[in-house]
């Protein structure tokens, strides 16, 4: 065990605390009354969780690729199943991202959620536990439990507080992701049967046969590609994003989508390195298609939320591209891009939520010429749009640059093709920015036909759109800090992932070395035969 992990040396069990605080908060919330109290309670609990997670940043040991802050308890001895949680350079940033995004989710729902506040707070807090559990579980069963358990609160968030087509969107979300992950369960159990352990670091050290790796890889990759979402499994995302309430969209964009990338890095690459290198061409092509198709689809949207949703498909394409380049720059870029996407797209969804609360429309044409009314809003919109299209100086630039650097380093053609995605990103984001801030060419900006939205605006008439209030500015400023901090000085973040990424690449290389030996002996076809024999054994 000591080979893989460093036990928690802080004087309190930090990771378990992070898991428990939201659950306890949710249980207490059941007994609270009054929407305002509940909102403050939710905010307090998520803030406490965020502060409790700070030691992960300050006390993190960057020199080792081992898992840190590990806690180990017996859970299910009969199956050699332990409760074991820990973080390494790959997961620690995602944990921090989760704990810091959650208070924003509560804040941005402050007035957006009008019904069933108690349920909303409870569900959001449970969601936080589930998401943290996915990132810190070091045991395939623990991972799976949180991975699947997360579906329930997320389903409820979309289904209860969603928009007009919430029924369709929520069911599609649930069934799509559930169907993807049941195969994950089979892979988890199959690996247990082979090795007798559920412990992730131990599973990484196994050298499975190629055929077995292929099955495991396909089962895992299916679940992760759906979550990611990767073309052609992306169709649930726009539906879920558009219908979800603002907090749901933020959670989806900032954290849920990252789980696919995290899964690839944690499971597919180290546990099935042979299969990974075998499948790299397919996955790279799928990533490129995601980047370009996502960009093109975003270009044609008139609904702001849909546009951002499709842009997510494109951005996530960059993440998978980086991951499957299997080199240092690529993987680091992908990791950084995950964080960046969490910050930037999360902020964009918060911005959409803000404008939707005022105009009750998500159509671009209904929200144009905002520059005249909402200067603060427009400033933030500008910052985050530029960040989304990877403008130099912003966070996404660093991530995309690293991914492209990795791509040109290894496959120049792939790099060249993905440049097209970056251009598309500029095209659709600038178009959005231009239309929302200045344009009134189509002549029906909101202030001309404010009556059609009814009188419930409560903004003192249809001509006055209130600019962002203090609560909204706080959220946006917080994220803006990250945009520029990561954009100008990404070294601290990159340093944190350094050892783990190096270790991961080492694991993949060691695994693939076996494959090269096999190929060298011209036994490539034998692999397919073993796969065939394995299929026969199935029946």
């Amino acid at each position, binding site marked *: 065990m000591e080979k893989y992990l460093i036990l928690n040396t802080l004087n309190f069990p930090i990771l378990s605390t992070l898991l428990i605080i939201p659950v306890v908060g949710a249980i207490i919330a059941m007994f609270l009354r009054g929407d305002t109290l509940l909102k403050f309670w939710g905010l307090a609990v998520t803030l406490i969780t965020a502060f409790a997670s700070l030691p992960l940043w300050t006390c993190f040991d960057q020199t080792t690729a081992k898992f840190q802050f590990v806690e180990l308890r017996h859970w*299910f001895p*009969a199956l050699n199943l332990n409760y074991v949680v820990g973080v390494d350079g790959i997961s620690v940033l995602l944990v921090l991202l989760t704990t810091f995004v959650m208070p924003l989710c509560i804040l941005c729902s402050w007035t957006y959620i009008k019904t069933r506040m108690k349920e909303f707070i409870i569900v959001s807090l449970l969601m936080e536990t589930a998401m943290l559990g996915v990132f810190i579980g070091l045991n395939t069963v623990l991972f799976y439990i949180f991975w699947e*358990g997360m579906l329930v609160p997320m389903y409820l968030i979309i289904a209860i507080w969603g928009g007009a087509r919430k029924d369709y969107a929520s069911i599609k979300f649930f069934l799509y992701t559930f169907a993807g992950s049941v195969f994950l*369960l089979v892979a988890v*159990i*199959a690996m247990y049967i082979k090795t007798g352990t559920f412990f992730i670091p131990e599973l990484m050290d196994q050298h499975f046969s190629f055929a077995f790796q292929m099955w495991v890889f396909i089962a895992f990759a299916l679940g992760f590609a759906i979550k990611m979402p990767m073309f052609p499994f992306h169709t649930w995302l726009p539906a879920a994003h558009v219908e979800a309430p603002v907090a749901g969209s933020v959670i989806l964009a900032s954290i849920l989508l990252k789980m696919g990338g995290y899964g690839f890095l944690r499971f597919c690459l180290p546990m099935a390195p042979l299969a990974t290198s075998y499948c790299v061409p397919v996955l790279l092509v799928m990533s490129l298609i995601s980047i370009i198709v996502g960009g093109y689809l975003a270009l044609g949207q008139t609904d702001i939320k849909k546009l951002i949703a499709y842009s997510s498909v494109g951005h996530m394409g960059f993440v998978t591209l980086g991951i499957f380049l299997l080199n240092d720059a690529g993987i680091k870029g992908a990791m950084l891009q995950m964080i960046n996407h969490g910050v930037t797209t999360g902020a964009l969804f918060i911005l959409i939520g803000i404008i939707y609360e005022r105009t009750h429309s998500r159509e671009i044409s209904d929200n144009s010429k905002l520059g005249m009314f909402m200067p603060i809003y427009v400033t933030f919109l500008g910052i985050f749009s530029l960040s989304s299209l990877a403008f130099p100086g912003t966070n996404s630039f660093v991530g995309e640059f690293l991914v492209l650097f990795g791509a040109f380093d290894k496959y120049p053609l792939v790099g060249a093709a993905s440049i097209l995605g970056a251009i598309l990103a500029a095209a659709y984001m600038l178009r959005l920015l231009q239309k929302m801030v200045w344009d009134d060419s189509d002549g029906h900006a909101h202030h001309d036909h404010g009556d059609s939205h009814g009188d419930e605006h409560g903004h003192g008439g249809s001509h006055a759109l209130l600019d962002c209030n203090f609560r909204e500015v706080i959220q946006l400023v917080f994220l803006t800090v990250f945009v520029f901090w990561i954009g100008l000085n990404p070294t601290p973040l990159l340093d944190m992932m350094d050892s783990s990424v190096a270790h991961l690449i080492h694991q993949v290389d060691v695994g693939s070395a076996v494959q090269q030996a096999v190929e060298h002996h011209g036994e490539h076809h034998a692999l397919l035969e073993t796969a065939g024999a394995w299929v026969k*054994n*199935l029946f």
Partner: protein
Amino acid sequence: MLNTVFMPELALMLTVLVLFFMTLGKFRTGAIQAASLLLTAATLVVTFASLNTQGNMFFDAYQIDALSQLFKVVIVLGLFLVFALGRGMRGVEGKLQCEFNMFIAISALGLMFLSSSVELITILLSLEISSYALYVVIPFRRGQGRIHVEAGIKYVLFGAASTGITLYGMSYVFGLAHTTYLKEMAERMPALVATQPLAVIAMIFVMTAFFYKLALFPMHFWTPDVYEGASNETTSFVATVPKVGAVILLLRLVSVAGVDITQFTWVLATVAVLSMTLGNLTALVQFDLKRLLAYSSIAHAGYIMLGILTADKVGMSSAVFYIIAYMLMNLGCFYVIYNLAPEGQNVTFDDLKGLSRRSPLLAMTLLVSAFSMAGVPPTIGFMGKFMLFTGALDKGFYALVIIAVINAAVAAYYYLKMVRVAYCVPDDEKEKIVLPVSAALMATFFIVVILVVGAMPETVLSAAQNAVATLM
């Protein structure tokens, strides 16, 4: 010696006797329920106390071991929950309420006998005790037309036919093995099953009556109609407790046939696959909740079979775990159905509308039970499925497990549909459902048990493993 070993059965017999004497007089519903609950609770305590006893009785035809005692606890617990769930017995004809409780208790008694029976004739007798009581009880229903009569007749006809087939199979088994004792059969059957198709057919025939009880394909035809026709109280019993009894006998019979993978295993595998596929696909289009649960129970029977047919420790103990899980989560659903139908009528998706507003607690119970049946962690249903798949993969049934997980994904849709209607479809006209404290407590019980045992299954699972160890 006999007294202590036979204590659980005696306690339940006493319950039946008291209920029998109460049928002679006139009592209020509350009194009948209080007596039933109190006596069953006492039985539960006694059964629990005798969890670790062992012994043989009646010329070794009746064996008390860890397996039988665990199942007796589960059966009595199920009976207790059914009694507690049917608060007010609104679906049962007024003058038959005491008889209803008595017959249900007799049926549970038969199942208790069944879990200890290790000899073919004894098995048949116990089976008939439990079945006959149910034949009587199915048509006890108040004011819902004649639908319950149809249900009663279907249940009798299918039951009689399957018992006949079982009896026919027993004659073959006796002819092949020259004994009616399972223990002696276990020495001869594995060799016979491996070489003689007749032995396979005989074993399958013997199992038919238990397929019928468990609602496993091809003996599942009665399920939807009986569930729909019988009163909500009766259905909650028929859907859960007899299946527990069926599982223990299937475990015993499969272990008699031996651990090797033979044609016998493949017949069971086919039955399991057909059962889960047919059950899930048909459940997708149901509108009546009890019919939906009927088809879902056919599917669950298939999952359980996946554990039973492995005939080794991991698989069988997971089947034991799963049937306990199945009983709890199904009772959770029936509890919601029962409370949604003040007149004892059948409940459709329309009645679920706006449930989260009308009664948040009921909606929560439905949510937890339904997601548990769908196999979403961290519930008991997920742990059950996880164990089942582990057991089956361990034995090498990859294809079976893949079919099962595809089924689980399909099934998620209709469980989700229940939750969706309860939480998302508004219906502001109906008044709120006010649950009395006892009912609210029971809802909390279901939620807590399903979640806690799901997160910490060690105790139940080790009990299950101890239990199946006696079969090895």
